[in-house]
């Protein structure tokens, strides 16, 4: 192997040439370079088959036999979350989730924990803006037993008064910590500016709301929001289907229907604001820059997703190539389309070296403007389309990823067709579409710019980004 030789050749070239010429010197070798092998023909991929049905009380069930590992994941998704909290009680839903883990009417929390552990799992309860989930992940042979345990936790929570003070104290501590993390601080500002008083605008509970929460509030929330009509159980992995169905029917069949899901969509307008929060001495400025975009049910949703992947949503994307790989301003910049129920915003986030706060914003907006004026080449777009097509396979190739996909489709009401036609739709997007999507929906002149950083060092750099400022 000629590693030594090759090294010397290249080293020799740029050691003698000025740095500027080094890159072109190397690219002179382009003709001599090998071309990567293209590989074989693609194999067909279909989302693993799943079976969906409803129990008589309205609870939905989806079973996905998948994989070789002897494990099974069960996820009970209930359509309730911070959206359902009274305005003066942010964080109530989170406390409900925490107190639900403190035992059932027939088992102490320790018994529940040990039961789950004996199956190789643990009960986890997560609460989001729109949904709450009670999950476990166990060895296959215990799958049906896990369904029984999940049903008990979800349907018969004890809500013991005795545990609430401890959980509230934990919640205070966690709130204090979360509010000192710059990325969380940025998210809190961004959501508040975008969504205002709508529940999506509140990321954190307040000490007051935690303090005043009583078991009565928790029970009232639970009774008003938990029930079969809002629930969907996903089971993915290896399991005995007949036994699983039996356990699900007996565990969840008696659950009361409960109320239908609350629909409360925010009316969102772009808010062109520069919002800076002081963080003295910060070594980096934490940026969160974005604006509302059409939601998941819009025909533009997939073209927008393709546009995002090309612009900032992948390692090789334009913004990342620029502010990370060319400029070295940041380590992990990324853009994303963040989604809630029939609602979405586009945002770029990055933690950038303090002295390059202004230049980073300039480059981010510059890349957006470039894409809004000039369509990408076919080759660049094709690369992103192949990336998203491959990613789709990976996103459907593990128990939890499969559940996440199905859960997203069900939650947004996209229908079975969505997963079947996704890749085709991704590949139907044209370079002009990408340009138009950018020009129409990702507009620097309408964006909310949230910065968490050291004002004394960044105020001047940020001045040109104040709405109305002359560039």
């Amino acid at each position, binding site marked *: *192997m000629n590693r030594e030789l090759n090294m010397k050749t290249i080293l020799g070239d740029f050691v003698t040439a000025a740095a500027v010429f080094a*890159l072109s010197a190397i690219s002179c070798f382009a003709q001599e370079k*090998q071309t990567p092998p293209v*590989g074989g023909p693609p194999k067909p991929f279909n989302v693993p088959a799943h079976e969906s049905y409803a129990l008589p009380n309205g609870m939905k069930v989806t079973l996905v036999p998948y994989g070789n590992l002897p494990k099974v994941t069960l996820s009970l998704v209930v359509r309730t979350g911070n959206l359902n909290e009274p305005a003066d009680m942010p964080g109530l839903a989170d406390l409900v989730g925490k107190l639900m883990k403190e035992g059932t009417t027939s088992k102490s929390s320790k018994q529940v924990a040990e039961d789950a*552990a004996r199956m190789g799992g643990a009960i986890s309860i997560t609460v989001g803006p729109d949904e709450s989930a009670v999950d476990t992940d166990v*060895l*296959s042979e215990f799958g049906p037993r896990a369904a029984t345990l999940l049903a008990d936790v979800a349907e018969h929570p004890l809500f013991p008064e005795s545990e609430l003070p401890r959980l509230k104290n*934990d919640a205070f501590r966690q709130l204090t910590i979360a509010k000192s993390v710059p990325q969380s601080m940025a998210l809190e500002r961004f959501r508040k500016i975008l969504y205002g008083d709508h529940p999506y605008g509140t990321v954190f509970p307040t000490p007051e709301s935690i303090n005043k929460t009583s078991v009565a509030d928790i029970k009232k929330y639970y009774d008003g929001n938990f029930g079969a009509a809002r629930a969907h159980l996903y089971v993915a992995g290896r399991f005995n289907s007949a036994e699983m169905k039996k356990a699900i029917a007996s565990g969840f069949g008696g659950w009361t229907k409960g109320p239908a899901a609350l629909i409360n969509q925010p009316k969102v307008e772009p808010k062109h604001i520069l919002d800076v929060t002081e963080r003295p001495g910060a070594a980096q400025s934490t940026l969160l820059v974005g604006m509302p975009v059409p939601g998941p049910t819009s025909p533009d949703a997939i073209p927008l997703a393709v546009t995002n992947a090309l612009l900032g949503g992948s390692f*090789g994307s334009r913004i990342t190539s620029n502010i990370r790989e060319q400029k070295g301003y940041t380590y*992990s910049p990324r853009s994303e389309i963040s989604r809630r129920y029939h609602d979405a915003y586009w945002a770029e986030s990055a933690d950038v070296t303090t002295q390059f706060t202004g230049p980073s914003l300039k480059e981010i907006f510059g890349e957006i403007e470039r894409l809004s004026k000039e369509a990408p080449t076919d080759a660049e777009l094709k690369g992103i389309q192949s990336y998203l097509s491959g990613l789709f396979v990976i996103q459907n190739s593990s128990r939890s990823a499969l559940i996440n996909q199905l859960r997203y489709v069900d939650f947004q009401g996209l229908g079975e067709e969505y997963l079947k036609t996704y890749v085709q739709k991704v590949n139907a997007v044209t370079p002009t579409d990408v340009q138009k999507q950018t020009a129409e929906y990702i507009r620097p002149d309408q964006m909310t710019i949230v910065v968490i950083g050291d004002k004394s060092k960044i105020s001047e750099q940020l001045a040109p980004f104040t709405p109305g400022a002359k560039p």
Partner: protein
Amino acid sequence: MTLRVKCAVRWIAVIASIFVMSLQIAVASPPATELKVPVEYYKLPNGLRVVLSQDHTAPTVCVAVYYRIGFRVEPKDRTGFAHLFEHMMFQGSQNLGKMEFIKLVQQNGGILNGSTRFDFTNYFEILPSNKLETALWAEADRMGGLAVTEDNLKNQQGVVGNEVKVNVINRPYGGFPWLDMPQYANTNWYNAHNFYGDLKDIEAATLTDVQSFFKTYYAPNNAALAIVGDFDPVQTRQMVEKYFGGLKSSQLPATPDLTEPKQEKEKRATKVDALAKRPALAIAYQMPQRNSPEYYAMGLIDQILIEGDDSLEYQELVQKRGMTAAVNGGINYLGNMFNYNGPMLFMADLTHDPATSPDAIIKAWDDPIEGLRTKPVDKEALDRARVKLRSSLYDSMGAVGGFGLADLLASFALFDDNPARINTLVSEFDKVTPALIQKTAQEYLRPEDRTVLALETKSAEAPTAPAKN
């Protein structure tokens, strides 16, 4: 993977007596599923260790290249260099310029990453399986030679500087305890230096450092290649030979002495974190020799003590005493108990209120440990730990796109020359007896063997009564 699943689930009645219950569970539990991971292992004449493991569940393949050079062994005046170097492996090789490696993988529908750990640096791609050859070519290309420039290096020094800032310098609890604790608990420089690196060391690195590090460690006889997923083994062997067979092996330097002297006395240290609003505490113990009976026992002790809500420390510190909301912990914070080779810490950490003193927490922490040290663990608890461990081992194997399995196989190839041991791990844990648990706890969980690191907030004004906030 092939495996046999015997699904016969029987529900057993709850039986009052704990003794009888544990007996009943042992007898009446459904038969455990057996997992046998297919492992093909061989070496190329140039020393490259190759592991193949087929799994045709999805049309994807994971290609992982592991170099036996971690951050422990990096030049002493260049802390953080192994990690900076990892970044340089994405900056250009013989046939791929800057960004071309990343784009090649992405444009073929794949994802990629690299990471630097205690005893290895890894690079991996997950791609649609028809692109296996593309990935092998690209990995062989960068194993064959780097083509990086001063500009690339300067750029990545900026990126890595920002990585250290975002993960350590600019965040509360940055580096706590994963980066901090080894520096307090260990005494041998190789185990005790700042692995992420001082910013000035990162900035001081030169292109000559990069080339010399590459020449020293990035050779086929210092690497393992794991391929997991949907592939044809015959064709794959041919491709591996075609692309990696011509790479030259190198004369590897002798591994420095990595051993940690036996600790005689408890160590206590304090770190002030100006960004943190609540104190935190970490406790670490030196692990027994990897792959010894005591090592497997510690794997189960970890399950008994700190993994999951049923664990003794969770029950003690969270549930009973309300000192914290969660006890984090485990063996090897930068991986798992299998993917390292040198000395290692068994560690736990938690955040707490200013009103709770570290001493009070340590006193409470010691209760369950004393229990393990003074009497044999009951069979039910040990069985539960075994089930949890098996379940978590399968999760490690099941991580995204075959990468979890590739990680274990490559580690076992590099460190044990035996990736097939993936199929005997469970039996090693099965051999652990209550007596061995007790003996291991007595020897390795002594207060004299531990390091306690307390993280203190800078200002005492942090509100302790949030209700009045």
